[in-house]
């Protein structure tokens, strides 16, 4: 049944929940810039693990936490920082994003 297979999946993952976000960028260079801006700060809460990587033109973020509300908090905060990164790129980046 759906609920017991979800429960088993969660148990196999040692009780942790995870969430992946993929953010497309106009170029791989810009995805790498976003990575550079967003990876250095550790998560304030030790129970939340954030892992970033670049795949082609996408920034990929994986969050892992023991509770859904922690995933929500981490995700919310990440989106704020991502938004600032993108706004900065729009304001200070080259006219054509493919130029980066």
């Amino acid at each position, binding site marked *: 049944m759906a609920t017991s297979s979800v429960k088993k999946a969660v148990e196999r993952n040692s009780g942790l929940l995870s969430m992946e976000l993929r953010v497309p960028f106009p170029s791989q260079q810009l995805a790498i810039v976003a990575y550079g*801006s967003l990876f250095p700060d550790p998560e304030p809460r030790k129970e939340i693990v954030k892992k970033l990587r670049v795949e082609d033109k996408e920034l990929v973020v994986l969050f892992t936490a023991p509770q859904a509300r922690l995933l929500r908090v981490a995700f919310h905060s990440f989106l704020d*920082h991502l938004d600032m990164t993108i706004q900065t*790129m729009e304001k*200070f980046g080259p006219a054509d994003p493919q130029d980066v």
Partner: protein
Amino acid sequence: MAKVKPQDIDCVAYTKGPGMGAPLVSTAVVARTVAQLWNKPLLGVNHCIGHIEMGRRVTGAVNPVVLYVSGGNTQVIAYQLKKYRIFGETIDIAVGNCLDRFARVLKISNDPSPGYNIEQMAKKGEKLIDLPYGVKGMDVSFSGILSYIEDAAQSLLDSKQATPEDLCFSLQETVFAMLVEITERAMAHCGSEEVLIVGGVGCNERLQEMMGIMAAERGAKVFATDERYCIDNGAMIAQAGWEMFRTGHVTPLVDSWCTQRFRTDEVEVTWRDDSGEPI
């Protein structure tokens, strides 16, 4: 505005710490993005050192004992062998925090700032109320005087033993005397003839006056700035960042994380030599 182009910029400086986590990270994220977009080196600056370097730049003080006083920090600092060493500090809350919380007890307005309004009211105070004096060796403590005055304020006001102006006056005189004492102790230690006051509480003219009296007695001079430079500002971070950059510092991205705790003496002061002269 400044009509400066990316090509004119040499490096990007931002505040690494100390301070509150979320605001620090938001500026760091933008700084890292700009630095990468324009391919410029990044400098993670210590906020306290920003205040010191702006104070030195604006006032021309050569090798002062620094009193750094704000809502978040209270330190007495002196340069020695490549470090800004902390000679004395608060063991609990910052003096600005003490003043701000006292303002809340008396419901003093936050416009333009509680500290400014306490200063204006203190000028009209006449009675010096006896308050606990918290100097502990080279350090100071403000939580005792704060809890005392928080408890006693209402009854002193109700019994007409003091006006709100008297309380402002008494609190200022007491906490500022404490700061002057630990500054003097550091000056005696270092044989210094200069005092530089930085940080938001440094705008306070009574503090500057009291420090001036102590300094004059020692044949020393007080350097202070106005509210354009005392209060937290971006230019001070740029000033310290520039000193760091021109003498070889760079902050790689992997080390650019922000931190709520960042001691003033953790930074290698590459821009001054062993005797304190500029490099």
